[in-house]
């Protein structure tokens, strides 16, 4: 079976600052990868590379065996921490937008039967994320959690192969976060989606997903913290992770975080 995502010896550099180095990874369809690590260890850069928003400095990313397109596309959905929804469209139209863009290259609007079909699909999707009663609201009338539900529905209605989540619940209250975890877990199980989720919260990583990726500096130079990039220091199936490993990872991430902070201060 071809890996959904295969990464071969990937480097990412900005000038003389190395962000990621020697990254190798294979992810199979249907895997749910949670990515944790200290700030500044290239988690978001990694997601932007998968998105096609950034190009690797060296190395290669393959999507289903073919080189990854160099710009974002409908095969990779994304939910950011903020600004993922369109403020000028109601909830229903936010979700309808994807099918409209796909189905009407020139006008960006669907009409007649095609529109009715797309509307039905959008409503079903919104029911699935629990927004079935807010169809005519504008995003500014929604709470943060509801906006993230909307962003999820918007992406999933397009049936992407890969869903990228960039700290999607970072700005939410703990109770709402738990609801969102349950929702994402359910939506993922019901599809053959491959998920990459960045999180700041290690517990979240063990709670959700099948595989945990820890991004951390491979080498430290206290005088030049930017000289060495980060890589994947742990790559474990979630069921194999026990308390001891969690504590180990927590300590290492904290050490890197402190080193990065000291360097930037």
């Amino acid at each position: 079976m071809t890996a959904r995502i295969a990464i071969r010896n990937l480097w990412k550099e900005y000038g003389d600052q190395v962000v990621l180095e020697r990254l190798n990874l294979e992810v199979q369809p249907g895997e749910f990868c949670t990515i944790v690590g200290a700030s500044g260890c290239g988690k978001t850069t990694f997601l932007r590379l998968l998105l096609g928003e950034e190009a690797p400095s060296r190395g290669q990313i393959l999507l289903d065996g073919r080189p990854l397109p160099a710009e974002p596309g409908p095969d990779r959905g994304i939910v950011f921490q903020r600004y993922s929804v369109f403020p000028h469209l109601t909830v229903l139209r936010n979700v309808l937008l994807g099918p409209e863009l796909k189905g009407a290259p020139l006008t960006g609007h669907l009409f007649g039967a095609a529109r009715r079909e797309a509307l039905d699909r959008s409503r079903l999707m919104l029911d699935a994320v629990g927004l079935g009663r807010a169809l005519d609201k504008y995003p500014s009338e929604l709470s943060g959690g509801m906006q993230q539900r909307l962003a999820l529905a918007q992406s999933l209605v397009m049936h992407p192969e890969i869903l990228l989540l960039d700290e999607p619940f970072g700005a939410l209250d703990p109770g709402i976060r738990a609801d969102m975890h349950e929702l994402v877990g359910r939506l993922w199980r019901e599809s053959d989606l491959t998920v990459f989720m960045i999180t700041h919260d290690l517990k979240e990583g063990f709670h959700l997903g099948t595989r945990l990726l820890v991004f951390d500096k491979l080498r430290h130079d206290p005088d030049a913290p930017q000289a060495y990039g980060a890589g994947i220091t742990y790559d474990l199936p979630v069921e194999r992770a026990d308390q001891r490993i969690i504590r180990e990872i927590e300590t290492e991430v904290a050490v890197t975080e402190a080193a990065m902070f000291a360097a930037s201060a």
Partner: protein
Amino acid sequence: MKRLINQRPSRGTAVLLGLLPFLILALVYLIASDARLAANPNDKLLPSFATLGESIQRMAFEPSKRTGEIELWVDTWASLRRLAQGVGLAALIGLTFGVGLGALPLLRAGLAPFVAGLALIPPMAILPILFIVFGLGEVSKVALIVFGVAPFLIRDLQQRVQELPREQIIKAETLAGSSWQIILRVILPQVLPRLIDGVRLSLGAAWLFLIAAEAIAATEGLGYRIFLVRRYLAMDQILPYVAWITLLAYLTDLGLRLLSRRLFPWYHDKGAP
């Protein structure tokens, strides 16, 4: 007693406080006018309210003896038509180029420095060129407004487009949007209310260019009239005209604000969940 920074007027008090400067101005005028007229009944500088009233009656409601038309309405119609044509055209140009420059880096690289240069030319300095090229008719007046307002609108809208969160554009790309579709469905609808904001801001400049052009070469129009009667020191005509222009400017602004609220409720109800 609360601190001054925490004392807020009630609604009624706010309206009263707002009216106060206008009333004071009217009162000061009245006193000054009375004093001057007492000294010299033929004084033209500060006509009495009665004289102003007669002039308004004559200008706004009685056909002119010379042309048989009601001057104020002819002037108003001529000026508003020029203003609407000029600002409308400038808005169209501003929207087209502003969105293009904001959304397409290649176009921006090619045109942004040129537009920036264009915006630096004082519009009044090219008025003679416009008169030479387009003649003394309507076109040169409309062209002056366009030239004066469009560069500002282009640059303003380009800014607004570039201020849209990058995340939104990326999101639209992951929803299969092409450049054209993203401009049409994501960028354009979001900058329309910002275009109205920009037009409201540039109306003052548009009036300035209109009145300047009319003062120099016209046969009717609000600006033409006040500069014409200036020769006779006809303050009784100039003052009502200035008040009328001010009122028109206020009503235009109010109309645009209400239009924007009506058409783009999502733009005005931000952060009110």
